[in-house]
């Protein structure tokens, strides 16, 4: 297969780049090793669109955080993923921290971030009654938002595909060679032995944790990516509205601290930790749990482990300099989008434009399509429709009247839609519809989702997986048992 551009990595960065590329008359492909986009680091991050004031002055992260922040409304409008500007609060517990708040506020104001204001204790009690009374002052930033990061990946990818970009899923890059016209990329599909060849004139390295290994394949690297793990804990939906804004402690040099995050769907999430880890270590730990709940309680004393319904961990891709490694490499035609740790999600739309500028500078002709379709059809969310809308939806298709997930109110029609739009696994359904994310953690809906995957994909129940590969859920009965 021959392409103008191959993007290696289908996380939020790769998907954002793909969508930008799809505006132009060129052939592009996203090469992703998981069975769906967004299943690596992107699905496991905090889902915060940072307000724009935290990033340090004169840094790429700082500049792109604010630029990116401003691009999310348009994206959400076109692509219908969940996004809401809830605002954030950075909390000070003593005089030194109050001084830090002022520094950050001024930094944001210089950058042009609007609406920053300092709240004293009375305002805080009124606006956020469940926050600790030990907080002496908080910096409020209305521009902060929450997004479902996996939803953003799915929709960015779907938009790119609708506009002609190819998705090469379940493909692992085994080697890249420079060729006369660009690059020869050897990929292996699933666990097949023989590699397939993808040719591309230009390559974008958005391979997250493995961006260093990918770049080293053509000697375009010279940097190292390390993994820094963050554990997050999800709390029961009875705490919806407990805290209305994203709550931060005062930041430290390495981490933004343990946060209390009202996610887009309302579920409260607490975390993340920050510990160096191996690139395949996604284990949650007792120590991490203790650290998260202690940190969360410092901000909102009423939070308890008893409310925990699920936990997960994500791995940040961290460069040696802690900065983004973004732009042309020392190899012509090979563009880097690496070291994408926080605020990379926020910056993603801006990162994509930087990558396209680098590609253009490297010789890629960018001719705008006149039939670029920026929008994707809005997915049905039964639970959010009015009675009248629900009725007419059900009249159109009774599959929307049958509930598959009762904790999150997800119908059979929505699960079918998710499969139609690319879900191949239980996690794929979960991240597109929320089925399985609720307090029963799939106890009721898993069977129904398995049946629908079996029916729509024509696979046996025993071939259904949680997230591809060897993650089967059930097996056939044993001959001659017991």
């Amino acid at each position: 297969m021959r392409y103008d551009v191959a993007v290696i990595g289908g996380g939020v960065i790769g998907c954002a780049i793909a969508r930008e590329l799809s505006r132009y008359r060129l052939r592009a492909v996203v090469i992703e090793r998981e069975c769906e986009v967004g299943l690596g680091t992107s699905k496991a991050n905090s889902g915060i669109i940072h307000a724009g004031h935290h990033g340090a002055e004169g840094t790429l992260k700082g500049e792109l955080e604010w630029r990116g922040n401003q691009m999310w409304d348009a994206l959400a409008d076109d692509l219908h993923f969940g996004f809401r500007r809830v605002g954030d609060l950075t909390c000070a517990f003593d005089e030194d921290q109050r001084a830090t708040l002022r520094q950050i506020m001024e930094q944001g104001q210089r950058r042009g971030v609007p609406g920053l204001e300092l709240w004293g204790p009375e305002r805080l009690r009124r606006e956020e009654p469940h926050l600790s009374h030990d907080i002496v002052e908080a910096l409020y930033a209305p521009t902060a938002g929450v997004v479902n990061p996996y939803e953003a990946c799915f929709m960015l990818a779907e938009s790119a595909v609708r506009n002609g970009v190819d998705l090469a899923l379940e493909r692992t890059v085994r080697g890249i060679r420079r060729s006369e016209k660009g690059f020869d990329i050897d990929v292996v599909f699933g666990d097949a032995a023989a590699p397939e060849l993808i040719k591309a004139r230009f390559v974008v390295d958005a391979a997250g944790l493995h961006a260093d290994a990918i770049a080293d394949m053509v000697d375009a690297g010279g940097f190292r990516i390390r993994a820094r793990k963050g554990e997050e804990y999800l709390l029961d939906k009875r705490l919806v509205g407990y805290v209305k804004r994203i709550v931060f402690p005062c930041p430290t040099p390495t981490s933004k601290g343990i946060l209390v995050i009202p996610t887009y769907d309302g579920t409260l999430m607490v975390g993340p930790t920050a510990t160096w880890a191996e690139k395949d270590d996604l284990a949650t730990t007792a120590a991490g749990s203790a650290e998260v709940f202690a940190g969360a309680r410092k901000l909102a004393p009423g939070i308890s482990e008893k409310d925990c319904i699920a936990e997960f961990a994500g791995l940040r891709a961290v460069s040696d300099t802690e900065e983004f490694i973004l732009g042309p490499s020392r190899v012509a035609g090979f563009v880097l989008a690496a070291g994408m740790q926080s605020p990379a999600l926020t910056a993603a739309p801006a990162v994509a434009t930087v990558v396209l500028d680098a590609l253009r500078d490297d010789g890629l002709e960018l001719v705008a399509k006149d039939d670029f379709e920026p929008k994707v059809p809005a997915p049905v969310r039964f639970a959010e429709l009015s009675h009248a809308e629900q009725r007419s939806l059900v009249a159109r298709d009774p599959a929307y009247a049958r509930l598959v997930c009762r904790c999150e109110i997800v119908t059979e029609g929505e699960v079918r839609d998710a499969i139609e739009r690319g879900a191949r696994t239980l996690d794929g359904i979960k991240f597109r519809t929320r089925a399985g994310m609720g307090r029963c953690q799939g106890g009721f809906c898993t069977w129904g989702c398995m049946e629908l995957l079996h029916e729509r994909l024509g696979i046996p129940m025993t071939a259904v997986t949680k997230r591809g590969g060897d993650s089967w859920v059930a097996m056939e009965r044993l001959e001659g048992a017991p």
Partner: protein
Amino acid sequence: MITPRPAHLQPRYDVVVVGGGPAGLAAAVGARESGAERVLVIDREPEAGGILQQCIHPGFGLHHFGEELTGPEYAQRAIVQTLEHDVDVLSSAYVLDVATDRRLKVTSRDHGVAFLDAGAVVLAMGARERTRGAIRIPGDRPAGVMTAGFAQKLVNLGGVLPGRRAVILGSGDIGLIMARRLVLEGVEVEGVYELMPHANGLNRNIVQCLHDYDIPLHLSTTVVHVHGGERVQKVTVAPVDDAYRPDLGRARDVPCDTLLVSIGLIPDNELAHRLGLRLDPVTTGPVVTSTMETTRDGVFACGNVVHIHDLVDYVSQESMLAGRGAGAYATGTPTPPDNVRLTPGENVRYCVPPTITTDREHTVYMRVSKPMAPCTLHLGDVYQRPLRYVFPGEMVTLKVRPRFLEGFHGGSLTVSIVPREEGGSA
């Protein structure tokens, strides 16, 4: 057992029962018996019977039907009885909301999204299982970690197996039953691990599920780590001390591909929250009167949604009472309010119902906080009864007769259960 679909949904019912398991089915019968004309049971599964349909083992029905039945047999009896009482049963249907004026919003394949009004509502949604997230077992999140009840559904209804080699965390009856079930389907069960220093299930299940198959039971031991990228590869277990802290120095790895978690049930009280019902902090189910009415007029509750039962027979008994209460309410028959509060005292965790009257007989259900044998149950100082044994895993029932309370004019009685010396005076 597939119940006939109601051809139409009426806009109004005397009593609507949410949930068609044993609780809901019995409540519907109770409602009809007390004069409600139109009674509807709404259930989310394709057939009524609730969790009993997957409980294929015997042990049900000795009290309620006078013989020992399997779960499906009990379910079928209950369904037949309910249909014989001219109750409509709507399957594959889900109650999205119950408003405070008892208007229900229901979605079903057969009738789309519909609103129904109810003279009275009975909440009978049962319980859900506690999941791994509730106890935050550290480690990876591979496929192969599931609740024992979900594994039971895979095996008994789905006809598939959860894995080849399983570890079971939790020695409650569901975990023990699944240990045997898996062995009889050729799955290796490496062991059952229990955090507490004693098993939680019935001795009958210890013998017939573990001893019979040489499955070891490891007490005071828990799972401290799950390993596996895509599918479970192994779990790490470790003994715990008196404060339930794991001793990681004595941890060991157990290769397996499946971890069943059997760590308790929680009343499924989503609708109770939406209705703003007052909940009992100990049971986490709605607070009810002696007719099983919640703190909202005309809304009743029964079965596992109120408190977790061990015997389905008691669920049926309690639920018929709730149904009668709902039927009486719907037909405008006033019920005298409760006038005696039962306060849980020494060794008693809770009483359901927490209030009763002096003029009728009541069955009060309670649970103790520790095992005691022999012991004495005290109802204030108006009544006491010697008991041979009590233990937390077995609900204690007390029939309170009006004559116990003759001469009692107070408002509150403390219910306590205390050990007594063997051979001493009761």
